[in-house]
């Protein structure tokens, strides 16, 4: 077991480090009490509020959330890529180095080589004026002192690894000459060309067709296993999460409201939001009405008091005032090694079946 992180005033940080019992080596990525606040026109807007999580090599950690949950801000904060209008506190430990404590100059060489990122819209994320190969070559040469020919060979090799057929020829194509799925692969190639330890994937398959999504997910998990990376997968799609995630953190209104292994979350959801999300997810087997979650997602600009989920929660009435006034703390579920939930209702009981 790893020592707890600093015990901040923010609820989520009490159980700072979620350890996975069978992975006793150090996590490659560890966020501790991460807070992100944006400067808004009418005062500061909190986006992430005390997020603590970690990812080990070879592990797929999914951060699940909707718009306003702070999942994308968490991703960008992990890369140190938030705009100047954001204030970040807490620590982002990348292989032991706190990215948030060092100046930008020292962060630059870590990006791409230690921690890399891919985005939702590959067409937008690739430079339209440069060939795919050139972009991968440039990325490689930022971290490797090699000549262009060697870098080009590496680019072809990595394009081939991500499943671009005829990579020797396609390396000189421009992004717009690639199909949607191939662009996604090219972007992944650009991110993994330097063998990063951590890959952050922000909604990597949301814009894709299902058949392509399946291929890209297989590619990402394959790379995770082969390269021994930690994959931090940011998504709103519980189907995708069930297919690939090892560990899951469910975020709501800037906080982790439940975290645990994929089986903890799907078999024994302990937060009403998680359970409601599972019920509201369309699937191929249920016909008829879905169990909708009433209301709208909370966010930094629209943050209810107490438990941020209480206006939409089916159990808030039963608990009573605590939900409206007191923010629940992320607590370890009794009898589990690492399943945590932040809910007044389930502190001493199970959720009834939905």
């Amino acid at each position, binding site marked *: 077991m790893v020592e707890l992180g600093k015990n901040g005033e923010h609820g989520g940080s009490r159980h700072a480090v979620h350890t996975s019992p*069978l992975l006793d080596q150090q996590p490659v990525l560890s966020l501790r009490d991460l807070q992100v606040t944006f400067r808004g026109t009418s005062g500061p807007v909190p986006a992430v509020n005390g997020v603590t999580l970690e990812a080990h090599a070879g592990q797929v950690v999914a951060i699940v959330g909707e718009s306003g949950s702070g999942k994308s801000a968490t991703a960008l904060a992990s890369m140190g890529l938030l705009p100047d209008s954001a204030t970040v506190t807490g620590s982002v430990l990348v292989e032991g180095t706190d990215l948030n404590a060092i100046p930008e100059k020292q962060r630059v060489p870590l990006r791409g080589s230690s921690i890399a990122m891919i985005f939702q819209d590959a067409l937008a994320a690739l430079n339209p004026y440069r060939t795919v190969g050139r972009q991968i070559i440039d990325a490689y040469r930022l971290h490797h002192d090699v000549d262009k020919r060697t870098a080009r060979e590496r680019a072809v090799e990595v394009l081939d690894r991500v499943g671009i057929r005829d990579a020797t020829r396609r390396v000189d194509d421009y992004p717009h000459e690639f199909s949607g799925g191939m662009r996604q692969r090219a972007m992944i190639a650009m991110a993994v060309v330097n063998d990063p330890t951590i890959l952050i994937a922000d909604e990597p398959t949301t814009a894709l067709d299902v058949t392509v999504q399946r291929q890209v997910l297989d590619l990402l998990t394959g790379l995770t296993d082969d390269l021994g990376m930690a994959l931090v997968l940011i998504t709103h799609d519980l189907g*995708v999460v069930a297919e690939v995630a090892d560990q899951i953190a469910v975020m709501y209104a800037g906080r982790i409201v439940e975290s645990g292994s994929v089986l903890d979350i799907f*078999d024994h959801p302990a937060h009403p939001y998680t359970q409601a999300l599972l019920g509201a997810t369309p699937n191929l087997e249920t*016909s008829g009405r879905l169990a*909708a979650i009433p209301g709208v*997602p909370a966010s930094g600009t629209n943050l209810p008091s107490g438990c941020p989920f209480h206006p939409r929660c089916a159990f808030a009435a039963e608990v009573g005032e605590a939900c409206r006034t007191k923010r629940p703390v992320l607590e370890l579920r009794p009898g589990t090694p690492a399943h945590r939930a932040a809910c007044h209702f389930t502190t001493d009981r199970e959720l009834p079946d939905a």
Partner: protein
Amino acid sequence: MPEPLLSLQHVSKTFRGRATPFGSSEAKHAVQDVSLDIAPGETVALVGESGSGKSTLSRVALRLTDATAGRVLFDGTDVTQLRGRGLRALRRELSVVFQDPYTSLNPRQTVARILTGPLRNHGLPRDQKVLDELITSVGLEPEHLNRYPHQFSGGQRQRIGIARALATQPRMIIADEPVSALDVSIRAQILNLLGDLRDERGLALLVVSHDLAVVRGIADRVAVMQDGRLVESGPVEQIYADPKDPYTRSLLDAVPVPDPHRRSRPLPPTE
């Protein structure tokens, strides 16, 4: 089978190539010889991946674009060549809900004004009572009428879009990817709302979607398109349980299942 309300007969749509400084692009056969009937009160899901022609086909049905070949019949009338008054009559009976609730509502108009637009176009009464009924029918409040679109969340905006589609009391609504731009927790709300409105008003629905899971709960029939052609159509139970076409099967197989016990990737070790 009852007389279809909307009947697409051998519809094709080809987009011409475009000249550029460096040669011209090829013509694109977006829809090729597609026939599809929708009965009054029936819900049909039109499913396909990007580039399958599903959106183009829905635009042809709405007469937002003209078919290159084939006919579109609404309630037995050939609407393929309608102009002027005839086209207006069609627009009153057949309305549309768009994908993106952020761009499909005029940001400079209040909700009341957005809703009176179609009423005005068709010379229908547009007093306060009508507007109140419209806005409450989609689960919003009358006081929302004086607000502007940016004051609403995505889901609420889509409700406004649906209210606008309902304004002229149409017999059919075509919804183009109505929930794909919305948060997961909101999708079910909007799908349920569409289903309820259909049941209350006997509406026919054509739901265009790339997601087979999304339309599972709402559709009576499913039509699957690939590369501009209709590859399979049939009752919802049959399509999901026993798809005939290999493409349909591959689509179904690719949909992620929200159940970790059925995944192919090994589960993480437990103690």
